[in-house]
């Protein structure tokens, strides 16, 4: 126990927890995105997928929910604590400060993370619990999705959140492997190829759904 506490206390240990929980998130969003694309195969197909998950695979889903909840909480707590430490490490700011190579993605991890958290809460209330979805009907995945995303403001919120996710992953999918000490050495370590692909594929894969609903392609 003492060693676990020391690990969590250390900045490198805490950051490793963020990396592992972040990677859990990345794997989840890839799976979720692929699942969502069945919306283009029609209501029956998507609803059948929903019934598969909540029927025969119910235990699996609950297991995944527990893992994801733990991951999100650890990720958030570590993000908060590391942010506070970093603030405390430079209480007097520079009068002039000119970023050289840090990306927009890296500099928006924290506020982008807050946006993602807000999105996460809304999204669960919208399509899992149904509390903020006027058209909600248990088991009618397709109908619930249409009911929500046919409101342009909500669709735009979903699309903006996916932009934030893309930025978060553009940095995170790259940095996590360095945080875990497993990235190969590179003559230009700031270059990233796989992370760009993950960020773009995930964000576009999610965002096509609200776009298609607004354009009336999915009805």
């Amino acid at each position, binding site marked *: 126990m003492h*060693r676990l506490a020391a*690990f969590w*206390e*250390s*900045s*490198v*240990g*805490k*950051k*490793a927890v963020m990396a592992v929980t972040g990677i859990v998130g990345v794997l989840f969003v890839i799976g979720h995105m692929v699942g969502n694309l069945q919306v283009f195969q029609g209501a029956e197909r998507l609803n059948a997928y929903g019934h598969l998950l909540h029927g025969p695979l119910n235990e699996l889903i609950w297991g995944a929910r527990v893992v994801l909840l733990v991951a999100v909480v650890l990720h958030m707590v570590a993000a908060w604590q*590391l942010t506070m*430490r*970093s603030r*405390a*490490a*430079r*209480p*007097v*700011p*520079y*009068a*002039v*400060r*000119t*970023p*050289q*190579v*840090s*990306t927009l993605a*890296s*500099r928006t*991890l924290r506020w982008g993370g807050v946006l993602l958290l807000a999105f996460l809460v809304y999204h669960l209330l919208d399509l899992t619990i149904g509390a903020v979805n006027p058209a909600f009907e248990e088991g009618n995945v397709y109908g619930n999705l249409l009911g929500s995303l046919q409101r342009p403001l909500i669709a735009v919120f979903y699309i903006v959140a996916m932009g934030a996710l893309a930025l978060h992953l553009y*940095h995170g999918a*790259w*940095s996590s492997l*360095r*945080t*875990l*000490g*497993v*990235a190969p*050495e*590179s003559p230009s*370590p*700031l270059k990233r190829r796989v992370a760009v692909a993950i960020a773009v594929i995930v964000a576009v894969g999610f965002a096509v759904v609200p776009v298609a609903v607004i354009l009336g392609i999915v009805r």
Partner: protein
Amino acid sequence: MSHDDTMQITVRVWRQPGPAAGGALVSYDVPGVSPEMSFLEMLDVLNERLTERGELPIAFDHDCREGICGMCGLMINGVAHGPEKATTTCQLHMRSFRNGDVITVEPWRATAFPVLADLVVDRRALDRIIASGGFISAPTGGAPDGNAIPVPKPAADQAMDAAACIGCGACVAACPNGSASLFTAAKISHLGLLPQGQAERFRRALSMVQQMDLEHFGSCTLYGECQEACPKEISIDTITRMNGDFLRAAAQPPVREAATGSI
């Protein structure tokens, strides 16, 4: 060089009489600056004038003025060591600026680097990180033959690149988190890559990271600013190596250390 080549520069310098005193940016006009002057020579000229006027000269750190000792280091227009890549402040020349420029000069800013006066900060926190694990155990006795221990060429090269760190603290200054990860990682890599550094490799990673945290440096987000600011161009690959060593060390069962020596 003709008289026309000289420039008129304005510097806005952080003035702070002592560690506990308040400070502020103060503007000084510096006429007659030659492009061949180094940045520190420009400050020398300014200091001479301040002394003649009976004012206190600006305190700044420097020693070798050859880019090798790591004593100098200023935040120049928001960039650690100024606008030239792979260049310490002492090796920066005024030809990198233009006539009429207004240049803001600030000390390294970090909780772990308290300002002593003006542009001078206390960087002993870095020494304490070294003391916590930046060494190897070597047997006493006659010096061993240099060629007795084979070192693979790639390891020798990488260790040499990491050993180029002069401990100036620019990585901390440039990091938005005020992290000393690049410094600590350079020291961990430089020893951990070599056969002589293996005995303490994992204990070193644990204790140097712990010391880094105790000194109130921030954590690493991998912004990359440190690597860009480093006058010796040390790569953030060293940080990947430090993290790997730390995590492997944390996963190992703790070693019960026997007291050395005889009773």
